[in-house]
């Protein structure tokens, strides 16, 4: 039985960086999953972009809770899909971010579901988002970015890209 869920690539930061990028993604899978364990400077809000597109071609619906209240918001004509509207990264406590990218090599706009978990013993959020990249091209590169592009990810941040194949 061919592998159905397999790692494509992993990156671990040895120093600071504003983003992590996976390139030359093969088109042979059905869905992609990114697992991102993130450390970074506030106000780094983890997001995702595709194919080096930094235009306002993204949007996100967001749902999160901060331990006291639940919230929903949206972002339209954005330059990324947001995974953590209600939170920012910590320099010491890793946040867990997961992106599910469906039919990434297909010819429709791309729908992305994200999960975010960050708890800092008195702050943090749990969040789920649904986002869209309004482009019909196959995804060949993925960039993990911040809503505020000038903030840094810290050393020890790790991201792994997985491919899921249906038969």
């Amino acid at each position: 039985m061919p592998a159905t869920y397999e790692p494509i690539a992993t990156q671990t930061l040895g120093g600071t960086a504003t983003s992590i990028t996976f390139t030359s993604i093969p088109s042979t899978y059905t869905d992609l999953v990114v697992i991102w364990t993130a450390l970074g400077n506030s106000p780094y809000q983890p997001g995702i972009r595709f194919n080096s597109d930094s235009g306002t071609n993204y949007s996100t619906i967001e749902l999160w809770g901060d331990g006291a209240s639940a919230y929903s918001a949206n972002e339209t004509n954005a330059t990324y899909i947001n995974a953590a509207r209600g939170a920012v990264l910590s320099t010491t406590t890793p946040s867990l971010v997961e992106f599910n990218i469906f039919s990434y090599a297909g010819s429709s706009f791309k729908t992305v579901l994200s999960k975010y978990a960050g708890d800092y013993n008195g702050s943090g959020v749990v969040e789920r988002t649904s986002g869209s990249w309004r482009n019909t091209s196959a995804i060949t590169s993925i960039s993990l970015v911040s809503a505020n592009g000038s903030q840094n990810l810290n050393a020890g941040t790790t991201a792994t890209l997985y491919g899921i194949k249906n038969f």
Partner: protein
Amino acid sequence: MAVISIKNKLKSGSLLAGNAYYVPPSFESIATITATGSESTISFTSIPSTYKHLQIRFISKESPSSGTANSYSGMIRLNADSGSNYATHRLYGDGSSVIAEGASSAVGNYWGYMTTYGTGIANIFAAGVIDIHDYSSSTKNKTIRSFCGADANAANTNWKVILSSGLWMNTAAVTSITFNPANSATMGAGSTFSLYGIK
């Protein structure tokens, strides 16, 4: 020809020394169904009992002029049971409000979301992941978890991100799964449901 080492019981894909041993995958594709645009339901049948858990990954859309716009009230049913043997909850955000809903003695569990056709959104599919743990148990009721959503870059409340849970009050092993769109909608062409087994 595969070879098994007598010394270390490792299995190699060939007689070539140094080959990595074969590790059977624990996440396997069982079946995939892609709608042509006229289906009133999507069903997986004859599901083998050899896995521990099931996962369904889907993209979905309504056919033009069918059902209710951006329907998120479709039902998932197990083993073709359409009786009032389910309970379900969901928590969702629409970009403005957070809504919590539930139903007991329901005729199915909430499963997801289907985008509609319309100006500027013909290319947008809803997407989701549904998990059914311990599906082959013959002693436990079944619990379903769903995470789904869609967004179309609109500053209104028509688009949603949805978390759902569901209970099927039956201890039988799950052998079939049926997705029923709400409001008599039909599955749009290109809607794809992929069933995976997890060992």
